[in-house]
C-alpha cells in the first residue's frame, strides 16, 4: 500500500465526514436539556408536531392506496405508454419540490382547474403537496419488489384457482412486503421533511398550517433559534429511526425471507 496515497485519501474523506458530524452535532450543543424540554411543551410546537405526524401518516396511507395499484400495474402488465408512466413516476423525484408546489398552487388557485376545491392554505393542501413529492418513493420501491417476484409463482397461484385479486393479496403482497415497507418508511421520512412545496401551497400559518419544517423555518427567521432547534432534534430522531428501520429491512431483504432468497434455492 502506498502510504501517502492512503493518507491523502483518508484525509479527504475524513474532512468530509468530520464536517458532517461537527455540523450536525452543533444542533445538539445549541440547546440545553432544560431549554429543549421547555420548548417542546409550548403549544405551538406541540401543534406543529401533531400536524406533521397527522399529515405524514395521511400521506403514507394515500400513497399506499394509489401507489400499490400503480406499482403493481407497472411491474406486471404490458401496455402501450408504459415507459411514459414509468418516467412520470420519477418526475417528482428529480423535480424540485418548489416547482411541484407552484404547480399545485396554480392548479388549485383562483383560475386553476381545481379551483372549486378549497385546499390552499389548509391541511388538505399540505397533504396534497407532500403526497406529490413523497409518493414516488413508495411506488418505485414497491414496483421493484413486485418485479423481483418469480413470475411462475404468480402463475402457479392462478392455475391453482386463485383470481388475480386473491393472488395479489395472498402471494404478491406478502412476497413484496419488505420492499413496500422500505417504500413506506422512505415516503414517510420524505413527507415529514418536506418544506418547499408545503410552504408554497399551505403557507406558514401558526397552529393551522405550521408543520415541523415550516416551524423550523419560521422560528429561525424570526430569531427564535431554540424552538427551531427543538423541532430539528425531534425530526433528527425520526430520521435516525427511519435509517435504522431501513437498514434492518435491507438486511431482511438480502436474507432468506424475500423472493430473491427464495429464487436462489
Amino acid at each position: 500500500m502506498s502510504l501517502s496515497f492512503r493518507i491523502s485519501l483518508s484525509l479527504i474523506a475524513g474532512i468530509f465526514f468530520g464536517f458532517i458530524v461537527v455540523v450536525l452535532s452543533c444542533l445538539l450543543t445549541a440547546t440545553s436539556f432544560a431549554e429543549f424540554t421547555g420548548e417542546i411543551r409550548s403549544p405551538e410546537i406541540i401543534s406543529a408536531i401533531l400536524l406533521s405526524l397527522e399529515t405524514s401518516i395521511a400521506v403514507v396511507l394515500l400513497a399506499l392506496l394509489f401507489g400499490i395499484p400503480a406499482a403493481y400495474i407497472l411491474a406486471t402488465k404490458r401496455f402501450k405508454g408504459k415507459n411514459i408512466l414509468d418516467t412520470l413516476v420519477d418526475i417528482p423525484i428529480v423535480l424540485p419540490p418548489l416547482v411541484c408546489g407552484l404547480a399545485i398552487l396554480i392548479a388549485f388557485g383562483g383560475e386553476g382547474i381545481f379551483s372549486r376545491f378549497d385546499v390552499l392554505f389548509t391541511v388538505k393542501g399540505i397533504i396534497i403537496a407532500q403526497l406529490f413529492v413523497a409518493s414516488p418513493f413508495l411506488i418505485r420501491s414497491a414496483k421493484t419488489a413486485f418485479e423481483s417476484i418469480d413470475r411462475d409463482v404468480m402463475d402457479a397461484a392462478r392455475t391453482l384457482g386463485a383470481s388475480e385479486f386473491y393472488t395479489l393479496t395472498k402471494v404478491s403482497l406478502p412476497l413484496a412486503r419488505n420492499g413496500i415497507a422500505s417504500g413506506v418508511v422512505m415516503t414517510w421520512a420524505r413527507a415529514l421533511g418536506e418544506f418547499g412545496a408545503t410552504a408554497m401551497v399551505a403557507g406558514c400559518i401558526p397552529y393551522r398550517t405550521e408543520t415541523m419544517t415550516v416551524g423550523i423555518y419560521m422560528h429561525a427567521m424570526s430569531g427564535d433559534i431554540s424552538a427551531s432547534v427543538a423541532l430539528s432534534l425531534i425530526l433528527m430522531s425520526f430520521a435516525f429511526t427511519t435509517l435504522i428501520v431501513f437498514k434492518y429491512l435491507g438486511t431482511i431483504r438480502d436474507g432468506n425471507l424475500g423472493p430473491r432468497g427464495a429464487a436462489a434455492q
Partner: protein
Amino acid sequence: MIQLDGICKSFGENEVLRSLDLSAKKGEMLVLLGSSGCGKTTTLSVIAGLTKEDKGDIYLEGSRINDTPPHKRGIGFVFQNYALFPHLNVYENVEFGLKAGNKRSTRGGNKTEVKRALELVGLDGFEKRNPMKLSGGEQQRVALARALATEPECILMDEPLSNLDAVVRERLRHEIAQLQRDIGLTSIYVTHDQVEAMALGDRIAVLNNGRIEEAGTPEKIFYKPEKEFVARFIGRKNIFAGRSATLDEDNGVLQISTGNFDLTTVFVPSSVGTRVKACVRPEEIILAKSDRNTIAKSARNEIAGRIVNISQNGPLMRVLVDVGGAEMSADITRLAARDLGLKGGDRVLLTFKATSVHVIL
C-alpha cells in the same frame, strides 16, 4: 379431453406457435417432445390461460375455454422451477388451491385433502417444513401435491424433472408415471428428453418450429416415424422391449430379458415380469472382434452378434450389429474401425456397463 385448433402466438416479431393442432384424450398422458425454443412451454401456457393466444380455439371436455380466466379453467400446472410459495410452509402450499377455490374455506376442513395429496407424493409428515429448505426432488413433489390437491380436470407439466440430478430424475419419473396411471388424470407433459418421452407417454407429439410434426404411440414415433424430421430427431437409439426378469434391490441390479438377450442395469423400482424398454447409447458400447458365439460366465452385458452395416456418423463410425435377431448400433472411432478391419458379416462382441442401460418403464 383437451383440444387445440389452429393456435397461433407471436411475441413481437417472433412467431412461436404457427397454427398448432393438438389433442389429449381423457386419462391419457400426452408427451410434447421437442428441442428448446420449439414452442413447448408456450403451448402449455396457452392451454392454462397464462398466455393469451393470438388465434385459434382451445377446448376442454368439449367446451371452448378461450375466454375462461386461468383460475377458472381447472387445469393444474407443474413448473420446471417448482414455483412454490416461499412464504408458506408445505401444508399451506398444498392448501393454497383449496382455499383459493372455495371462496370461504370450511374451518379445518382441508386437513384430510392436504394429507391425502402429500401421501400421494410420499411427503406425509413434511407439513411444517419450509419448502425452500427441501431438496429439488422434494420441492417438485410438493408442487405436484399442490396441483393434485385441487383435483384438476387435467394437469400440465413443463419439464418438471430437468432441474434434478440423474438419480432423482429417474426415480421421480417412475413415480409420476405411476401416479398418473393410478389417478387416470389427463396429462400433457413437456420434455426435450427422448428417454423421458418414451417412458411416460401414452402418446408422443413431436413439436418443431411451432407445429406438431407427428404424433402417435411411442412405438410409432420411435420405430416407424413418418416424417424425416422426427426420424432424425429421434435417431436410432438401441431401444429394446423386454420384461424385468430378476430384481435385486440389495445389490442395486435389475435383470431384463428381451426376446433376444438379457440386459443388466442398475436397480429401478418395478416388479418381476413388468414390461419395460431399455436403451443403450451407441457411444457407450465397446466393440471387439470375436469368434465366440456365446459367452460362458463373463461380464454382464456382453452380447455377441454379426455386423450388418457400417456407416459414417460424424467423426465416428456407426456399426449396426445383428444380435439374436434384434439390431444394435455402436459408435467407434474411425481408427478403431480400420484397425479391427471390420466389415459386414464379421462376428463381434458388444460390451457395455450396467449403468449404460437406461430403463424405460
